[in-house]
């Protein structure tokens, strides 16, 4: 048995994962091979050292902090859904109806146009699949208790030359620090409530490659009740 293979088996044996056959191979080999015997002892010492590192005592308030955040998060989710004004739902429904009717009227006598559009749409979807925009902060629907918010994202920028960052409808690209594949914008003091971020990634001709939009919520800490979730929900 060559020493290189025994080296791997020594690790497996000392990690308690060796079969009986592997155990026998290791133990008989180190009896006769000085080098592997030395390696065995060194690896054993290192393993003992690593397993001797005691657990760090976690903060005493860790449990309550986790549960408070989970409770606040849950309450916020429920609240925000029902807090959405009925007039807004009506608006969305009307918009969907108008789009549906327009589509029917537009394509009723021209089925070939429909198929072309479907192809173009699918091509666009493929194009939109790249590059990818990953939200870093704040998270989608996150509750933020500060006024100045760091808005950041990672962008797989292959082929992307033009990034635009829009906060609440205002283009803030000029105030955004954009590196090769990362951007960060620190907002001015924002008001309480929802804020919407849109990031557009276009190619050099202005053709949209990807878009990502999300909302976050600014709320003063005292308005998040964590003791009585039933009242908030």
């Amino acid at each position, binding site marked *: 048995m060559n020493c290189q293979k025994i080296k791997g088996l020594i690790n497996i044996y000392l990690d308690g994962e060796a079969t009986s056959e592997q155990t026998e191979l290791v133990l008989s080999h180190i009896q006769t091979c000085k080098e592997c015997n030395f390696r065995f002892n060194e690896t054993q*010492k*290192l393993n003992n050292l*690593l397993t001797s*590192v005691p*657990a760090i005592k976690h903060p005493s308030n*860790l449990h309550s902090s*986790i549960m408070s955040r989970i409770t606040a998060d*849950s309450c916020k989710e429920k609240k925000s859904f029902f807090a959405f004004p009925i007039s807004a739902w009506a608006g969305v429904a009307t918009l969907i109806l108008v789009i549906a009717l327009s589509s029917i009227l537009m394509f009723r006598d021209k089925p070939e146009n429909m198929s072309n559009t479907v192809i173009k749409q699918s091509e666009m979807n493929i194009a939109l699949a790249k590059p990818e925009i990953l939200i870093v902060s704040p998270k989608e629907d996150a509750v933020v208790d500060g006024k100045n918010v760091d808005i950041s994202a990672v962008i797989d920028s292959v082929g992307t030359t033009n990034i635009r960052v829009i906060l609440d409808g205002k283009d803030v690209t000029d105030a955004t620090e954009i590196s090769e594949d*990362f951007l960060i914008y620190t907002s001015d003091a924002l008001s309480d409530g929802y804020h919407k971020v849109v990031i557009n990634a276009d190619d050099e001709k202005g053709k949209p490659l990807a878009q990502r939009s999300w909302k976050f919520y600014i709320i003063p800490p005292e308005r998040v009740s964590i003791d009585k979730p039933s009242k908030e929900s």
Partner: protein
Amino acid sequence: MIDIDVLKKAQTEDLTDKIQSFDKLVAENEGKIFNTIYSFIGDYDEAMDLTQETFICAFRNISKFRQESSMSTWLYTIAINICKKNYKQKKKLSSIFIDSVDNPQININSIEQINQDQSIEDMLEIDEKQALIQQEISLLPKKYRAVIILKYLQDLSYEEIAKIVGCNVGTVKSRLSRAKDKLKPKLKRIMEIETL
């Protein structure tokens, strides 16, 4: 071990039941998840934030947990992914703010909280050793760091580690071997003292 009824309740739609049951899951796992994250990033306060983030992520996705692995394996997976994401974010930020994240420094003050029963002399000696080991682990490339932490600090099997880091058992073995090859010369001094 997580009671199956606790898990089922944590997966219900009833928010009160869900939160109460999840509370038990947190109690059972918070210590080891915190330790894993702390060993990975080497910052006590940040480990607390990321532990919270891990459990919030788990809570939001608890309905997707299909018991194909144990609850703790699932939580370790989330924790390691959050650590990696955090590392990636810091790396991106460091390219702007020139603040390196490749060399996380273990906060030695936090280690003092471990051994409150020991004498100051013993504590200083042990703290120094632990800090050095933690420091060397935290200096490993993250793919080696993860397997070392999960194997030797969390005592998980090769198979569990493979599930958590998303590779096969063979890769876990080779990463552990390489990680230890990197650690041996760094920890040689302590290893020699230990054998005296």
